[in-house]
C-alpha cells in the first residue's frame, strides 16, 4: 500500500521539468491517499486507536508498519488518519474560499467606505498569527477538529479575498459589465452572473495552494498535543513518536512520509491549475548566457 507514497521521493526531479508528468504524479499521490481515506474501514477494519499487539514492534508481516508505544497498529492509524488530514485540508480551503469570495467580491465591487472597512478587516486577519491563534483557541475551547478547521478557515481567507478584490476591480468597468448595467440589470445580478465567473479562477488556485498549508498546520498543532484526541491523526502519531525517535524510527517515519506525499500531491495539482489559468507562465524568458 505504501509503495506508491514511497515512490514519490524518486521521480520528483524529472517530474518538475515535465508539467504533464508532474500533474500525473499529483493525481496518483492524492488519489491513493483519497482511496485509503474513503475505504479506511475496508483496508484496515476496526478501531485504529485500540491496542492490537505488543508495544514498539518494528515493521513486519503481522504489523506492516509496526506498532506504537501503546501497541496500536501504525498502518491502521495512518489509513484512518488520512481522513483527518484530507478533511482539514478540504474544509479549510473551502471555508477560506467562501469567506474570501464574499469579502473580496463585495469589497471590489462596491468600493468606497465598505471597501475601506473590509480591507482593514482583511489586513487585521492577515497580521494575526494563525498558528498561535489556533493554539490559543484549542487551549481555551478544547481540542475539537471542527474548531481547528474554523480557526484556520477564519485566518486563511485574506489571501483569496485580496486576489478576488483586485480581479473584480479590474472587471467592473469592462464593456460587457457596463453593457449589462445599461440594460438595467440589478447590481447583485451583475456581480454574480457577469463578474464572479470571470474573477473566480485565481481564487480557486489560491484556495488549492492552501490545502497543503492547512494540512501541515493541523499536523503541527497535533504535534504540540492540540489535536482531536478521539481521531487518529498523522501529527499525533509524530507527537507520540518524539520520545522514541532514536529507538523506534518507524513510529515517526511513516506518518511523516504520508504527510509529505499528501501535501506534495496537493501542491502539484494546485501548481498545474495555476499554469492552466495563467498563460504567462507557459512562456519562458529569453535565455541568458
Amino acid at each position, binding site marked *: 500500500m505504501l509503495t506508491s507514497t514511497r515512490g514519490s*521521493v524518486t521521480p*520528483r*526531479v*524529472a*517530474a*518538475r*521539468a515535465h508539467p504533464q508528468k508532474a500533474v500525473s504524479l499529483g493525481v496518483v499521490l492524492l488519489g491513493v491517499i483519497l482511496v485509503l481515506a474513503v475505504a479506511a474501514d475496508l483496508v484496515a477494519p476496526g478501531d485504529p486507536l485500540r491496542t492490537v499487539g505488543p508495544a514498539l514492534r518494528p515493521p513486519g508481516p503481522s504489523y506492516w508498519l509496526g506498532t506504537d508505544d501503546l501497541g496500536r497498529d501504525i498502518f491502521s492509524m495512518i489509513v484512518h488518519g488520512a481522513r483527518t488530514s484530507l478533511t482539514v485540508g478540504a474544509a479549510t480551503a473551502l471555508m477560506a474560499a467562501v469567506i474570501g469570495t464574499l469579502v473580496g467580491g463585495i469589497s471590489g465591487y462596491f468600493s468606497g467606505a465598505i471597501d475601506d472597512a473590509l480591507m*482593514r478587516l482583511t*489586513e*487585521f486577519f*492577515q*497580521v*494575526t*498569527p*494563525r*498558528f*498561535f*491563534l489556533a*493554539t*490559543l*483557541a484549542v*487551549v*481555551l*475551547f*478544547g481540542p475539537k477538529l471542527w474548531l481547528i478547521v474554523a480557526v484556520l478557515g477564519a485566518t486563511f481567507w485574506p489571501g483569496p479575498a485580496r486576489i478576488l478584490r483586485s480581479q473584480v476591480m479590474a472587471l467592473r468597468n469592462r464593456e460587457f459589465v457596463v453593457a449589462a448595467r445599461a440594460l438595467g440589470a440589478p447590481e447583485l445580478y451583475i456581480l454574480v452572473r457577469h463578474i464572479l465567473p470571470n474573477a473566480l479562477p485565481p481564487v480557486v488556485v489560491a484556495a488549492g495552494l492552501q490545502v*497543503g498549508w492547512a494540512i*501541515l*498546520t493541523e*499536523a*503541527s498543532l497535533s*504535534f*504540540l*498535543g*492540540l489535536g482531536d484526541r478521539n481521531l487518529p491523526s498523522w*501529527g499525533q502519531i*509524530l507527537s507520540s*513518536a*518524539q520520545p522514541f*525517535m*532514536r529507538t523506534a*524510527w518507524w513510529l*515517526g517515519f511513516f506518518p*511523516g512520509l504520508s*504527510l*509529505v*506525499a*499528501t*501535501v*506534495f500531491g496537493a*501542491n*502539484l495539482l494546485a*501548481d498545474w491549475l495555476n499554469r492552466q489559468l495563467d498563460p*504567462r507562465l507557459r512562456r*519562458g*524568458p*529569453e*535565455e*541568458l*548566457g
Partner: protein
Amino acid sequence: MGPYVLRRLLQIPPVILGLLVLNFVLIHLAPGDPLYFLVGEGGDESYYSAIRSRLGLDRPLAEQLVRYLAGVATGDLGRSIRHNEPVISLILGRVPATLLLTGTALAAATGVGVWLGTLSAARPGGLLDRLTNGVASVLAAVPSFWLGQLLLVSLAGWLGLFPVQGMVSARLASGGWALIIDVAHHLVLPASTLALLQIALIFRLTRQSVRETLVEEFIRTARAKGLSPRLILYRHALRNSLLPVVTVVGGHLGTLLAGAAVVEVVFAWPGLGRLLYDAILTRDYPVVLGIFLVVSVMMVLANLLTDLTYAYLDPRVRYA
C-alpha cells in the same frame, strides 16, 4: 516618505487594540469561568471569590475590558499559574533564544534562496533549475518537525556529528569563546531545519520574480548595449526582482515563528515555542495568552518594517 510613514504608523494602534479585544472576547467566550484560565483550577470557593473581587471579575464586562487594556498597556500580562512569575518576564526571558534561532535560519535561507533562485532563473530548464526546483517543491511539503526529527536521528544520533538537544552542554559552565562555539554547535541542526523550509519558499519566489524581470524591455536594452550576462543578471535583473521577495519574506514571519515553535520542541531549544509547549501541557493559560499577544505584536511590527522597507526601495509605493 514622511506622510507615508505617518499614515502607516497610524494604522498600528487599531490593529493592536483589535488583537487585545479578540483576546479578551476569546477568554470570555470559552466554556467555564474565566477565573480558571487566570489562576488555575482546583482552589476552593472562598479563594475564588477573593480573587474574583481582587481582579474585578465581578464587575461589568465593559469595565473588565478597560481594566484588561490598562493592565496590558503597563506590561501586565498576568502571572503564570505554574511558575508563579509575571508572564511578561517569562516570555522576555525566552525571546533571545528564539530570535537567535529564527534570525540565523532567516539569514541563511535568504542568502542561499536568493542565490539559487537567481542562478536557476538565468537558465530555465537547465540542470540546476530542474534539480533545485524539484527539491524545493518537495521541501515545501515537508512538516518542519518531521524534518527536524529526521536530521536529529541521522546526523546527531547515528553519526554523532551534533549534540542531540538543548542549547548548551551541561558540563560547559564557562563563558567566552567556548560557550559561543558550544551554542553555535547546538544551533546548527535546528537552524538548518528551519532554514531548509524557508529556502524552498525564498528560492521559488526569487526564481519566479527574476524570470519575470528577464523578459522586460530594459534587459533587452542592456543586452543590446553589450553588457556581460553576469552584470545583467545581478545588477539589472536581481535588483529589480527583490521587491516581491522582501514583501513576502517579511509577511512570513508568522510562518517562521510557528515553524520555530515546533522545531524548538523537537530539539528542546529553550525559546518561546518550548515555553508554549510546556504551558499547553500544564494548562498554564496566562502564558499561552501572553505568547499569542507578544507574537501578534511582533508580526504587526514586522509588517510595518516590511512596508517601510518596500516604500524606501520603491518610491511608487509612497505616493500610491
